[in-house]
Every structure is written in C-alpha cells, then in structure tokens.
C-alpha cells in the first residue's frame, strides 16, 4: 500500500475489509456495523520526546510527521494496536500480556539446547509424538494429537515493573478478564491445559480461515484464571519469582494446541505452506526429517486491547 497524501486537509480513506465484503455478499444480515475503535498501528511512541528542551510543542513533532499507509482490506492486517479508553487519566502504568517460560511445561524451544528459535512445536500426529517421546519429552513441544503431555502456553497479565511489588493488588479496572485467540483454522484448535482433551469451539471463522476464540474468566475457567498457583516450584517465594509479570498481577491464560485432522493425516499443507527440517529429539535414532509449517497465534486482551503474537511450528515426522 502507498502512503496517503498528507499535504493538505486531513482525509479519511475508508474501505470495506474482505470480511466486510464477505458478510455483505452473504446477505444474511451479518453485515452490521455496531461499534468502532481507533488504532495507531504506525505510531512509534519511543519517538515521543517529553524532555525536548524547546518545549512541549516539540514533544510529538516526529510522531506527527509519521506517514500513514493506505487502508488494508485484509481484516487481520489492520487495527492491530488500538487506543484504549480508561475511566481515569492519572494512570502511570498499564498492564501487558507476557509469555511465561519459567516452568518446563511452559517453555518455548528457544531456551532448550539445540532447538533455537523461540517456537512452540506442535507434534501433529501419533508418529511424531512417538518419535519425540523416545527420549525425554522436550519442553516446548505440545502433543497436538493426543494432548497427553502437560506442555502448554502460559500467558500472564499485569504490570511488568519492578517499581511496584507483586503483592500489591492490580486495580480492578486494569484486570483483563477476557482473551481473544486468533489462529489459522487449518492447523488446529486451542485446547485446555489439563490432561483431558477439551477443544474449544471458534466464535467465528473469517474468509482467510482465521478462527477467533473467546475465553473469559467467567465463561471458560479452564483457560483463564485469577488464582495464581500458590506453589509452582515448591514455595511461595519461588512462585513469586516464577511469574514473569514482575509487578501487580491480573489473570493468567493457559492453552494448548490440538492439531487439525488435515495436518495429522496429510502432508498437503506442509508441502504447500512449509518445508522440511532435521531435528533430533534424543531418542537415540539420530536426527529425523520433519515437515514443518510456521505460523503465529495471536492473543488479544479483550478489555485492554493488548496484542501478543506467539510463534508456533507444526511438525510432522516424514515417513522414512
């Protein structure tokens, strides 16, 4: 997309997204605009120079000169960072969502020797799971077919600051009680962290096969919790240290990924969207060749709008 002409009056360049056109074409009344949000995707707030010696008029000079791109029609590409309405203006801190890799069950492969690249792997079929299980089950690998392994993704929400101790309660209006998870529906679905196979149902799937799931403290307690574990690694002290949110805490969001039937039973999507790689999970048989697809899962705070993309690599053992 080109930049918009900003030499004259402020103009608004409005387009329907592909999902908007899709719903309009369906003609079933699903095209109904009911709310709006404001976004600031292009803005880099690190350019805000609040100490500029020339005065406050110069604080945002660079930001105000930011060129703005034309509107994207892909619904998943726009409005990634939104403006937020808060009930008060005297806030100095805002909560974030952060990936916790402290426990082996929540680690990405990036901190596992020999696996580099901070992925969560998803073993998509039984053969792949068996190959991984030949050694010690590797942290960061989700058993996408059987969901028998405890590896899951843990996201924490709160104030990630050392300046406020973690035992101070997070203000109620800053607690995130709803998470939206967006992922490619062709690859899998989110599942609960516990041993039982419980797979979530999408709220809707858009024209690009991106499925949206809603999880909330009240409706889906298996995924969202505000009861932080009293003992992660044995003692209360360790618990506080184990949390990646360093200040006041809001909620936690756990999930795993159950692989889709397409990935489990076919190599079509791997050949079309991915490639092959060699991995050694320590089973004694040496490195094996795996098909892989790299993709992201996006988690959005339903209340605060904070967005986090988590990289996943779906792997499938290539038959020898």
């Amino acid at each position: 997309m080109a930049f918009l002409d900003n030499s004259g009056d402020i103009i608004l360049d409005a387009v329907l997204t592909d999902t908007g056109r899709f719903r309009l074409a369906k003609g079933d009344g699903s095209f109904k605009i009911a709310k709006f949000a404001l976004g600031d995707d292009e803005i880099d707030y690190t350019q805000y120079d609040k100490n500029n010696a020339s005065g406050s008029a110069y604080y945002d000079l660079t930001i105000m000169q930011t060129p703005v791109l034309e509107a994207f029609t892909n619904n998943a590409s726009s409005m990634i960072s939104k403006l937020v309405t808060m009930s008060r203006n005297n806030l100095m801190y805002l909560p974030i969502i952060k990936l916790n890799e402290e426990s082996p069950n929540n680690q990405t492969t990036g901190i596992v020797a020999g696996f580099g690249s901070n992925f969560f792997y998803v073993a998509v079929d039984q053969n792949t799971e068996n190959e991984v299980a030949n050694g010690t089950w590797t942290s960061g690998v989700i058993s996408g077919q059987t969901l028998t392994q405890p590896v899951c993704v843990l996201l924490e929400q709160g104030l990630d600051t050392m300046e406020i101790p973690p035992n101070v309660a997070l203000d109620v209006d800053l607690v995130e009680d709803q998470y939206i998870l967006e992922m490619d529906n062709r690859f899998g679905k989110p599942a609960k962290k516990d041993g039982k196979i419980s797979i979530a149902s999408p709220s809707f799937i858009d024209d690009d096969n991106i499925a949206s799931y809603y999880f909330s403290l009240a409706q889906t307690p298996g995924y969202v919790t505000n009861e932080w574990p009293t003992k992660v690694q044995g003692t209360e002290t360790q618990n506080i240290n184990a949390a990646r949110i360093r200040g006041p805490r809001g909620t936690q969001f756990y999930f795993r990924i159950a692989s889709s039937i397409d990935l489990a039973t076919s190599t079509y999507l791997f050949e079309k969207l991915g490639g092959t790689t060699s991995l050694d999970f320590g089973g004694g048989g040496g490195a094996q060749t795996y098909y892989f697809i790299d993709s992201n899962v996006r988690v959005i705070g339903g209340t605060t709008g904070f967005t986090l993309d988590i990289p996943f690599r779906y792997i499938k053992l290539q038959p020898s």
Partner: protein
Amino acid sequence: MATVFKNLTNNDITTTRTLLHEAIPITGSILSGTYNNNSTLALGSETNIKTYSHGMFESIYDYPYLSSSANHIFDMTMGYGTGSALSSSSNTQNTKKINLYQQLAQVLVGFTTGSSDIRPFDENGDLTEGTKIKECFFLNFSRLLGKDEIKKGSFSLELGVQAPWSSAADGGTVFNTRIKITDASGSTGYKVNSPVGEYGILYATGTVNQGVADVPVLWTGSAEIVEGQKVAVGLLYYQTGIAVLSGSVFNSNQGTIAGVMSTSPGILDDILCSSSFLGSNFGGPDAARPTQGSGFNAITQSSIDTISDALRNRIYNISFNNTTELNSTIYFCRANHNDFNFSANPTYLSSSKIRVKNVSTDAPVSYVTSVGLYSPDNELLAVAKLSEPLKKSPETELTLRVRLDY
C-alpha cells in the same frame, strides 16, 4: 473499566445519496485513425474494432481489443422497421436489420397497449401520433462509460458531413463541415413513457462550415433550418445508455436521389447528397449498387458492419457526462474528551510505564491513524485511515466522519 470499542448509536449513523458525474470525451481519432496502423489497415480492420461472425454489430474499444488494457466503450449497429420503405427481402442482411430494429424497439419503446405489436421509435416521443423513426443507427454505450445513466442535457455528437468524402485519417476534409447533435432540452424536458426509463430528443444543428459555401444547411421537411433552430434526429435513452440516431441525418431533404429511389426526406441539403458526397460506404447511385441512394439508403445493399464503419469514420467526437448514484452510510465516530486517551501499542509502554507521561498527573496522549468499524461480534468490517496522525488527549474531542459508499 478499560475498553477499546465504543458503540455507535442511531444518532451516529446516517445515509446519504449523492449523484457523481464524470465527463466522458470520445474523440473521433480513437474511433477512426489512431489504430489503423498509419492507414495500412482497411476500414473495419482497425485493431480497436471488434467485429463478429454474426455481423449484427461491431464493438469499439479505446485500445486494441486484444490487449488486456482495452476498455469496451460502445457498440454500433443499425436497422429498420418492418414499415420502412427500405425493407426488402433482396437487401443484404435484411432479416438481421429488421430484427435489430424490432429488438431495440421492443425494449426501448415497448408494445402497443393491449397487443404484442412492437411500437416504432417516435421522433418527438408522442407514441400515439407524429413522425416515426423507421430507419436508424444505434449507439449502445457500455456501462463502463454510461454508469448509472447519462446526465440529461450533456450529450453531444458531432458528425462530419463535408463533401466530397475523404478520410480525416489521411488528412482529408471530412470534418470540415459538421453537424452537431445534442439532447439540448434534456436537462429541463424529457420523456418518461418508455418501459426502460427516461429519454430525451436528439436535435441537430449546423456547427462548422469550411466546405461548401451554403452548407451545412439543414432542413425539416420542406423548411430550411435557420440559425438558432434545430431539427429532431433521434432519441437518447438515459438509463440504458443507448442513442437512437435517425437515418435522416445522412439523407437528402429531397428524399430522392437522381430518380434512383424515393425515400423519407432527410435533414441535409440536397447539395450535400451528391453521388460523391458520403463516400463509398454511404455511396451515391452507381452501376454496382443501383438501388443505393445517398446516406442511410446505402444500408440496403451494405452489411451492418460496413455501414457502422462508414458512420464511425464520420464521428468527429462524442461527449457526455455520466452519472453514478452513490449511496453512502456515514458513521460519526465521536471520541469524547475521556475516550481513547491511552494506547495498546507495544511502544506505548516501557516496563509497563506510560512513555508519554513523566508523572501520573500528566495528561495522557495518544495518536489516531485509523478507524475500525466492527460488527457486534467484534469482526473488523471496514477500516478508514487518516492521512496524518491526529492527537488525542483529555483536552480534545474528535468526531471522525467515516463514509462507506455502496
């Protein structure tokens, strides 16, 4: 409570209808000359002219039609009704010429009340009486040009009537004498008794005379048209984008050519309709085509494509304004002083601390670059981008007017 959405109420949404006009100029050089490979291609073989094996019309493009860049601009054809004196089973493509007339008359004029008889085109729009247009050219403009309708009162077609005929593409003088055909009264008066919407009467006036001293002299019946007068020569259907041009524009006011045949009187002075005037395709009487008179009478022994080519080469220019009905919904996105002052942008925070503040009592600041319109289930249905960032703080309120066109 934090939130990123704001609901739109009925007071925030309104609908409007706007008529958008575009000027459409079609120069004669596109229709004849530009794409004849320096006159090496014969009439009708130009690269922007598409003909068909059925021979019922030809299509004109603005660029060689085999190119994907070419746009179809209009079609040309002609025909005569069953009541025309020109109709004869010995004519070339006689059935097709009748069928074309009947087809378009059926669509554009309709049927006689209570019967299946197709009404002929009427010169002044009074279907019950008056002069009927029994022989005509049809110019069918593509929807790309005509859009929703041709703007009333904006149509203009200029035809070269210089004698003798010589191709303008070869430096000839065909356009030195011209007549201009317009829907002059269309903006104030038009007819609504067609089954396909509104139509106006096309009138001809003389415009340029660099040829014969006393031409163009136009006639209506036995009366000479004096300056300021005009003569009805066709109909323009605004919504369907079809111009019906009477064959009389190329006929002699005498209605007879050197005793060859008697036809309906035309609008041109007889002197313009000498055997050498309209060129080979509109022809004069000659041994090879003994039944041809001047002008439109040539249709009897020429194919539709041939006559279309002849007319096309006499078009000096065509211009009109089209109209697009733009239905819009306007969403007034109102950000009050206490709305949207914070951001979820990753760069907004440093260790959860707001970058744009020094102390908590500082006013928060955010910058708007986009507006997203959402469904009740939070799907992004439309997005609007601002041309530059807009500062939002508790000291400001914004109303962003987002217009979606359908």
